[in-house]
């Protein structure tokens, strides 16, 4: 079968993981759950990048390096995102995003 040696298998795995993350981001009410779904989506993209770097001969090490950069940016995003959620929680006393309606009223 050679699943571990086929680029398509990795890309489909990454695509399904990305779809799961999309569902979580759209459907969950808790802001931290949405952030976790974003992390899942970033991981899916990273898997696709690393798989491309491993199978396309022209890319050599570029895939892995881009994946490392994405990880660093994801860490920065998680830091700022969680800080914002904690700051909002301190004002509104709820982590649920559908109760953040101060600008709708």
């Amino acid at each position: 079968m050679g699943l571990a040696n086929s680029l398509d298998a990795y890309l489909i795995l990454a695509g399904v993981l990305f779809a799961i993350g999309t569902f979580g981001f759209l459907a969950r009410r808790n802001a931290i759950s949405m952030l976790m779904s974003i992390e899942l989506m970033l991981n899916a993209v990273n898997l696709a990048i690393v798989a491309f770097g491993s199978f396309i001969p022209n890319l050599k090490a570029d895939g892995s390096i881009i994946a490392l950069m994405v990880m660093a940016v994801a860490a920065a995003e998680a830091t700022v995102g969680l800080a914002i959620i904690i700051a909002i929680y301190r004002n509104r006393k709820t982590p649920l995003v559908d109760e953040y309606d101060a600008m709708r009223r």
Partner: protein
Amino acid sequence: MRGWLYLLGAAIAGAVVTTPALLVFVLGGGSVDDALFVALGTLMLVSALLVVTMRDIIQCGLAMIVAFLALAGIYVVVGAPLVAAAQVIVYIGAISVLILFAIMLTQSKAGPARLVFQTQAAPAAVAAVILAVLITLGVSATDWGETAERARLATDTLALILFQDYVLPFEVVSVLLLAAVIGGVFIAKREEDPG
């Protein structure tokens, strides 16, 4: 009684993860890499589904750690050991701990008891399934010009390229991390005495 239920759940979960891998191992001529890929992929997808569907958000965070760990294993299978190590250090060591602490700081007693999903959960599920099908079809239909074997990347080669061709992005990322740390501390800081 409760302990037996947990044990039963763990046994069912282990069977779900290992059965496809064993099938691939037996039917596919005994390739260990294929079996590992299927086992880790199944583990990752199952725990990712648990992350987006479970009621208790602490359990969601723990399932997310399992998903990250399985993904690190997949990085090893695809031939990028340094990325796998960075995945363990950055995601499991740093981001997961950060998220678990944020959960503890923002958990209210009414949180887990109430509804988990928004009202648009059903359309979101349909959209996610359509997205997965579209990606699968697009990937299958495209010829990427890939090699038949995956290349295993040596870490010293990666280090040479990282510190020769990619020095500028590397430094920019370090500045970005510094800015994110300062910004995170500033935003999350409690305002003791205004003015």
